[in-house]
């Protein structure tokens, strides 16, 4: 019964007042951090994209235009809230929450700091209680994030359908097909991380990445990270995979009929998801709150206690990813829909599956004491044969399509 609260040493045993207050504070902190981070992210994105396009960007509201998002949000709140006549009223109202709530839920499992050095395992002491700097550390860890992102599909899908209008429906069908397809490769590249670290929980994964050499981006051999990054971008509907809101073709995508606060919720969820995905990537592949350490040399930030330093490291690492996302938006043109599906199904899913098998073979070879070189050669040959077969299948199907005409 204890496990229902996730394994946090705080909640083992009798429930006392101090742990309860700490948990409530954590909930509040995570929620507020999420909202403020989203606000700053919108500003950051506009400013950086403007800089890359030789413009100035928001500069009127507040210092450096920092309060621009707040102004926009307030404006959206006071706008009239329209519901189209042909809309399915209940689902139309439900959909924004279905995309807003998951965005915050998946933020709760990310280790936001803590001392992972000297075998501390991310424990910090607050008010005399041992705890982790993360809201929840469920045993299934990252699978929880995967489940939540599966739920987030509903928000977009139902928003488009319930609008009772043509373009939103097209946008939402595109979006959900894209998200469902890329979830597969996302999961497969996650599985390699589980294979290497041997645990599902986020704090355990961070704990296993003590030095630069054990960061999962190195330990899993870079390929899973690249696949995860591409799939995550597609999952987030960020450019260059933002076919969901291709303005030129779809007016505005799934949220065309939404206005006022409901639109603001979608907008918030989108940016919140970007931050969460970046944080998840840092957690999984780049050591999360762990400092950069190499061969016993730890890059320590002086004057800050270790527990707080984790937060600083996480912030810096996440910032790099957020910048990359903005950079992608400013530079890359949008994919065509068939290119998107080809990339997902014909490249990323086979590649992630193949890499997973390769790592699994290595692991098995090490456990059984087989010759590492022999294992590698055999698995590479097997994967090569699989690759040739796959290409053969593609070329045959392409030929048949030419002979018979397309299916639809």
């Amino acid at each position, binding site marked *: *019964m204890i*496990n*229902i609260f996730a*394994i946090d040493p705080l909640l083992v045993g009798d429930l006392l007042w101090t742990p309860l207050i700490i948990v409530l504070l954590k909930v509040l902190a995570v929620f507020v951090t999420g909202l403020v981070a989203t606000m700053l992210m919108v500003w950051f994105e506009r400013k950086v994209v403007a800089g890359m396009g030789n413009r100035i960007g928001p500069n009127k509201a507040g210092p450096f235009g920092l309060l621009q998002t707040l102004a926009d949000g307030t404006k959206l709140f006071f706008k009239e809230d329209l519901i189209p006549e042909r809309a*399915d009223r*209940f*689902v139309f109202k439900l959909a924004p929450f279905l995309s807003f709530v998951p965005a915050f839920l998946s933020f709760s499992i990310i280790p936001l700091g803590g001392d992972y050095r000297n075998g501390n395992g991310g424990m910090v002491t607050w008010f005399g209680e041992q705890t982790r700097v993360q809201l929840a550390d*469920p*045993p*299934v860890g990252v*699978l*929880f994030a*995967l*489940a939540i992102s*599966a*739920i987030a*599909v*509903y928000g977009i*899908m*139902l928003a488009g*359908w319930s609008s009772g209008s043509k373009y939103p*429906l097209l946008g939402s*069908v595109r979006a*959900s*097909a894209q998200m*469902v397809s890329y*979830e597969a490769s996302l*999961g497969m590249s996650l599985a390699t991380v589980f294979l290497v670290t*041997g*645990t*599902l*929980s986020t704090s*355990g994964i961070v704990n296993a990445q003590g030095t630069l050499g054990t960061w999962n981006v190195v330990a899993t051999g870079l390929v899973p990270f690249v696949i995860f990054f591409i799939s995550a971008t597609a999952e987030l509907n960020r450019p260059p995979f933002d076919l969901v809101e291709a303005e030129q073709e779809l007016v505005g995508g799934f949220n065309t009929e939404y206005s006022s606060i409901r639109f603001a919720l979608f907008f918030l969820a989108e940016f919140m998801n970007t931050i969460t995905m970046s944080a998840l990537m840092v957690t999984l592949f780049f050591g999360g709150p762990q400092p950069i350490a190499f061969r016993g040399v730890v890059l320590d930030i002086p004057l800050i206690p270790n527990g707080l330093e984790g937060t600083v490291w996480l912030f810096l690492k996440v910032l790099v990813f957020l910048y990359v996302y903005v950079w992608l938006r400013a530079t890359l043109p949008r994919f065509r829909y068939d290119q998107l599906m080809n990339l997902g199904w014909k490249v990323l899913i086979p590649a992630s599956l193949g890499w997973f098998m390769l790592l699994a073979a290595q692991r098995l070879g090490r456990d059984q004491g087989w010759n590492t070189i022999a294992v590698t050669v055999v698995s590479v040959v097997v994967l090569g044969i699989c690759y040739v077969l796959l290409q053969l299948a593609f070329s045959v199907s392409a030929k048949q399509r030419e002979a*018979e*005409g397309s*299916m*639809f």
Partner: protein
Amino acid sequence: MELFVFVCASIMILVGAIGVVVRKHPVHAALSLVLTLFGIAVLFVAQEAEFLAAVQVIVYAGAIVVLFLFVIMLLGVDRVEELRTEPIAGQRWIAAFVGVAMLGLLVAAIVTGAEAVIGRGDGIASNIAGDNSDANVAQLANSVFSDYVLAFELTSILLVIAVVGTVLLARKRKGQRVVAP
């Protein structure tokens, strides 16, 4: 506490299940199904089977019902169905009979197996000593890939057959006109 969780989850499941049957609109029925699946996931967590709960949400709520919704939206059956006519004669009586028979079977199974379930009282996780958080996954993997590996492989073959069958059915044969739905 456990009773409270059980009651809440059961209410979710029952409301969802009744909704699937009663709701006239296919999309609403599918959403009720999601509610049911969620409730079952909550029950799994309460039984310390977190992995099953996660898989339940990822696979059933995240993939299968999304596919249902896809079919409903793309094929344009998202309007209220005419329910008074029976496509197959006597369908309702047969359905009612099978339903009652199923209920009888379930009750019989619970009555005969009551002691076995309540008496032992060990969840999935508690078989491995200590608070190993990955006990769930390790145990499932051990039994699926050792004791039940044949059944596991047969299931995967079944899935492959289903995919091949679908592709064959959906393919246009030479010279055949595609009828717009």
